[in-house]
């Protein structure tokens, strides 16, 4: 399958067998491109229909191009409030989950201690449990304690499911970390605190940022767990759900497109940042 093997001269290679080899070689490429197109199709639809000028309530058929919804994306009643609420929740949940998750990741990677297996298990289970069970069980906790549902119960729910994702992301970046750099700092007279602030933290910062970005995007996107613990508070996904029966306004597509664009830009920036910080030849 390597280029060298392909380039080996073969005798008696007929046109038919060459054609067959070409098909065999490129079938998978063709399939891969097709699969990517399938993955992109709904995204393209979301973007395109943000420019649609629908006749009625339903934004299904193409009626004509307009930039009206882009000029006033928060026009429909309650939409702006829902987006603001979503962002506030995501910011609080991201900050808390990133701090808690990073500390757990540090403990797991750098120390050997009793209860390690149990800790790994506790981190792993929320990642695989169905969201509906996470949401429902948290609701039963709040119901049994008579807790009023709203902004803070949503924040708690989001921190809960984001912690594990942060731990996994930060841990993945910590594993390849060269401890010698820290030892060098200590040899040069830095104490543990200075070493952490000046050496460790800057080195693991891209990992922490990646974890925080993931937490933020999970929080802003979450519908299932939120719907169980929201009370009357409305986040952006809850707004979309409430409008889905009556026809979602094109402004929702505009905001969906914005979230998508921002996420892609941040992803690319993080990838580029890491490429730049990784010395050439290092893993």
């Amino acid at each position, binding site marked *: 399958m390597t280029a060298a093997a392909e380039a080996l001269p073969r005798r008696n290679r007929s046109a038919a067998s060459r054609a067959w080899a070409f098909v065999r070689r490129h079938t998978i490429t063709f399939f891969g491109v097709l699969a990517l197109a399938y993955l*992109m199709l709904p995204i393209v639809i979301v973007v395109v229909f943000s420019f649609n000028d629908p006749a009625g309530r339903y934004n299904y058929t193409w009626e004509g191009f307009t930039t009206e919804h882009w000029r006033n994306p928060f026009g429909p009643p309650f939409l702006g409030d829902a987006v603001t609420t979503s962002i506030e929740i995501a910011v609080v949940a991201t900050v808390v989950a990133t701090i808690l998750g990073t500390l757990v990741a540090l403990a797991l990677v750098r120390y050997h201690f009793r209860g390690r297996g149990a800790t790994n298990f506790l981190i792993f289970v929320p990642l695989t449990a169905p969201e509906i069970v996470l949401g429902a069980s948290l609701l039963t906790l709040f119901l049994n304690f008579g807790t009023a549902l709203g902004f803070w119960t949503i924040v708690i729910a989001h921190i809960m499911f984001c912690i594990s994702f942060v731990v996994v992301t930060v841990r993945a970046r910590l594993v390849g970390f060269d401890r010698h750099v820290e030892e060098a700092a200590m040899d040069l007279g830095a104490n543990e605190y200075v070493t952490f602030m000046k050496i460790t933290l800057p080195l693991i910062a891209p990992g922490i940022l990646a974890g925080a970005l993931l937490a933020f995007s999970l929080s802003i996107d979450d519908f*299932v767990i939120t719907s169980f613990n929201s009370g009357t508070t409305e986040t952006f996904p809850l707004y979309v759900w409430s409008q889905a029966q009556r026809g979602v306004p094109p402004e929702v597509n505009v905001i969906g497109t914005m979230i998508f664009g921002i996420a892609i830009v941040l992803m690319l920036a993080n990838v580029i940042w890491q490429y730049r910080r990784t010395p050439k030849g290092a893993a």
Partner: protein
Amino acid sequence: MGFLHRHRWLTPYLLLAPGIAFLVVFFVVPLYYLGYTSLQEGTVQVGYTFTWAWDNYREAFSTYRGQFFRSLQYAGVATVVALLISYPLTYWIAFRGGRWKNLLLLFIIAPFFVTYLIRTLAWQNILSDDGLVVGALQALGIVADDGRVLATSTAVIAGITYNFLPFMALPLYVSLEQIDKSLIEAAKDLYASSTKAFLRVTLPLSAPGVIAGTLLTFIPAAGDFINAELLGTPRQAMVGNVIQSKFLEITDYGQAAALSMILMAVILLLIAIYTRILGTERMAG
């Protein structure tokens, strides 16, 4: 710093404490309360009391058996389809991607950046009666002229497949990418055909990715209710729809909690059987 210096063994526990405490209080304890609620009787008006009401389980299961098996069936079909799409796709990226690998991977993750509900609504648009897909299928004679795709099982399964496909593709990619290419060349040097090299070397080596991917796809798919709600009708309702409406609309907490417990138990059981059959514990990939 003096205290910590004398008790260095404490450091990992101090780092763990806040995060683990949070997960215990808001993940583990709620599971206990889910079980507790599932054995309660009552209504919103008179309140709920714990009475070891096992009837909740019996009734919930006998009434909603159909939705249960439908959930497992839809999730199963969607998982298989997602595997059939993801395997060649990630194989192509891992083995032929070259320096474009990371960019191509971004395409796989991209759907995650569009809000779940919005991308499902986009499928509502695509599959709608005068949308792209129905027109094409009618022209090809696969769907009758008055036939629909939206509001059928096919639409719900298609939505589930699309929404959870990245969960399949990412672990698959990781395991395919890690395969030492020289092993495949070695098989070919020993006169294995491409097919045989794939079946005997690549496929077994990618098994951890297949296992992790199928589990990570099947589990959320079995609990999903968004696709059935937006792309189906009540006739396509899954167990998630029942749990959701019982908790949030008709406040029948006992049965709703019982259904959640059954769903969780069935999923855990399936995971146990599945990993036992495949003889591996490497679920995390």
